């Protein structure tokens, strides 16, 4: 069974204080690892897809990296508007179907204080 564990559960930062969120996973063959941002009362917003170990993706102050066991979401010089819940999800290639399910972690609640 695929499993995703995110840490920490909650993270409070001062504006400009860089940090990282962790996503550890176990999956029977990784088809893709996805990062989402979710604001209160809204649906998750897609950020990145990573497919293989060593891959990195960047968007503004966010950078996602991937190893064989975990992914990190690095936040450089965060601003208050980066406050949100960040979700990680994996899709395995078990069964070889293209409509494979995503397994989500519980998320990290990030608060950035001005």
């Amino acid at each position, binding site marked *: 069974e695929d499993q995703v564990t995110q840490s920490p559960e909650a993270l409070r930062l001062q504006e400009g204080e860089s940090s990282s969120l962790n996503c550890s996973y176990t999956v029977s063959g*990784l*088809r*893709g690892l*996805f990062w*989402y941002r979710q604001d209160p*009362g*809204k*649906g*998750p*917003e*897609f950020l990145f*897809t990573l*497919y293989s170990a060593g891959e990195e993706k960047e968007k503004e102050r966010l950078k996602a990296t991937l190893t064989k066991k975990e992914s990190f979401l690095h936040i450089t010089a965060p601003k208050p508007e980066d406050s949100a819940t960040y*979700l990680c*999800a994996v*899709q395995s*290639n078990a069964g070889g*179907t*293209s*409509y*494979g*399910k*995503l397994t*989500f*972690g*519980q*998320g990290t609640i990030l608060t950035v204080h001005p």
Partner: protein
Amino acid sequence: DVKVTQSSRYLVKRTGEKVFLECVQDMDHENMFWYRQDPGLGLRLIYFSYDVKMKEKGDIPEGYSVSREKKERFSLILESASTNQTSMYLCASRPLGTGVMGGAPLHFGNGTRLTVT
């Protein structure tokens, strides 16, 4: 941009009522999904559909059914609402995954917060 629209942001229903949650996507995606999101439990898959009139059970299908008569529309049905179905319901869609490059991301609607009293 992909747009996934859920017909209601908030719903309040009584125990025993039949409840319909509607979802429409505008990008001709083959796959559509219904999740529920609860504090401490994260997102859990209820049902998904990989094509018109096709459906598959997710991890928590009990008490729910779905309908997909048209490609753009995926409905979640609570046959007889119960208080433990009070939750945030999220619909998502995605195109078919590409073989070598792996899976495509889900695109979510803004959710329907359902309260069953």
